[in-house]
C-alpha cells in the first residue's frame, strides 16, 4: 500500500511509495527486512530508486552489463513483468513489486 513520511527525505510530502517485497536471501542486503519502499514511478524508476537507496541489492538484481539477472523474476501485483518492454509502465497505485527467483533457475 502507498505510504508517506516513512523516510527522512519524504519531508511529510504526499509522495506515494510502493512496497518492494524481497526473497529471504536478499533481506540481509536491506538490514534484514522482508520489504522496503521506494517512491512510486515506472517500474524502471522504482528499480533505479531501489538500488540507489539500497546499493547492496544492485549486484544481486543486475549483472555487469546492467541487465536484470537471467533468473530474477519481477512481479507488479500479480503480473510477471521481468521483460524490459514493461519497464516504462507506471506501477499502479496500491500494487507492490515482488522480487522472486525464477523457476527457470532450477
Amino acid at each position, binding site marked *: 500500500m502507498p505510504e508517506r513520511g516513512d523516510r527522512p527525505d519524504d519531508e511529510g510530502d504526499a509522495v506515494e511509495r510502493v512496497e518492494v517485497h524481497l526473497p529471504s536471501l536478499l533481506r540481509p542486503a536491506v538490514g534484514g527486512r522482508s520489504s522496503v519502499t521506494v517512491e512510486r514511478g515506472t517500474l524502471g524508476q522504482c528499480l533505479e530508486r531501489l538500488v540507489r537507496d539500497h*546499493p547492496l541489492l544492485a549486484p544481486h538484481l543486475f*549483472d555487469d552489463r546492467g541487465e536484470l539477472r537471467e533468473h530474477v523474476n519481477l512481479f507488479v501485483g500479480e503480473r510477471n513483468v521481468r521483460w524490459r518492454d514493461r519497464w516504462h509502465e507506471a506501477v499502479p497505485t496500491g500494487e507492490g513489486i515482488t522480487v522472486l527467483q525464477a523457476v527457470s533457475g532450477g
Partner: protein
Amino acid sequence: MGGRALVMVGTQKGAFFYRSDPRRDRWEIEGPYLEGWEVTTIGVDGRGERPVLYAGVGHFVYGPTVHRSDDLGATWRQLEARPSYPGDSGFSLNRIWTIVPGRDSQPGVLYAGVDEAGIFRSDDDGASWQGLDGLNRHPTRAAWGPGAGGLCCHTILLDPHDDRRLWVGISAVGTFRSDDGGETWQVKTDGLPIIEPREDHPGVGSCVHRMVLDPEDSNNLYQQNHQGVFRSRDAGDSWQRIESGVPSTFGFPMVMHPRDPKTLFVVPQKSDEQRTAIDGRLAVYRTSDGGDSWAALRSGLPDHTFQGVLRGAMATDALDPCGIYFGTTGGQVFASADAGESWRPLPGALPRISSVTAIELAD
C-alpha cells in the same frame, strides 16, 4: 605444543566453522553462516591486530559478492564493491574463487581471482576493485576456454622475496607470472601438458588445478594439474613431472606443510571422468622430499567413499604438529592433528564443500 584451530568450510549452501579444543581432539561446529549462499572461498587477512575474513559468496540466481567478517565469522557484512568487469568488456563476474591479502608492506591491498577468469586488486580493504588488465586482456585471451568448473582464476601467489613478482593459475588455461607487480603477464606452461594446442598461442591450454609456492625459495613451485603432478625449480619457467608413488595423476587440491616446504599433500582421484576416491578408498598422499616420492596416508579415512575433493577444499593450520583438513563433494570434513599420520571425521553432513581454510586461535 599444539593449540586450538578454527577450520572454516565453504559449501554450496553456506559456511560452517569448526573450533577445536587445545589438543584438536574435540570439535564444535557452528553455522551455517551466510545461509543459502554458495561460499566459494574464505580468505584470511592476518596483517592487522585481529584476523579479518573475506568470503567469496554467490548464488546462481543472485550473483557473486564479497562479504567481510571482523569477528571470526560470527557476523558478516556484504561489501558494496566487488570485482567487476566494465559493462562493455564482454566478460561477466560469475564466481569469486580466491581472495588473497597483499604483502605486509601493502596494508589494505587485496587480490581476488574470479570466474570469468581474471584478477582484481583492491588498495582499500575491498572498498573498490580494479581489474589487472595485463592479465584480464592478455594477448592470448582469445585462446582461453573454460573447464568443467568454468573459466576460473583460482590461485594467486605472491613472491615473499620479490614485491613485483606474482603468479596466477587458471583452469584449462595455464599458469602466468608477472615480474612487474601485475602490469604484464607471461604464460608459464613449458613442460605442462596442453589440452589442445593452438597454433596462435601454443602455450595456452594447460589445466592447473592448484599451485603452491615454497616460501623459503620462491623458485620452487608445485602444482596439481588436471593431467599430472608437477614441480618447477625456476619460478615457473619450466615444469617437470613428480608422480612417483601417486596412484593417479588426476586430482584437485595441493597444500604445503607450514614449516617444511619439501612436504606437500595431494588427494589423487580416479580419472577426470569419475573424480572420486580411487577404489572408494579415501587417501591423502604426502611427499617429504619435495615431490621425488609420494606415499599414502589413510589411517582413519574410510573405505567405500565415492566422493571427491575439490581444489580449494584442503588446508593446513600452522600448529605443531600441523593440522591438515579437507572436505569432500559429499559434505564430509576430515581432520588430522598430526601432519596426516591419522585422520578423523568432523561432525556434520554438510552440502558440497568448495573451500576449506584453517587458522590458529589464541588461547
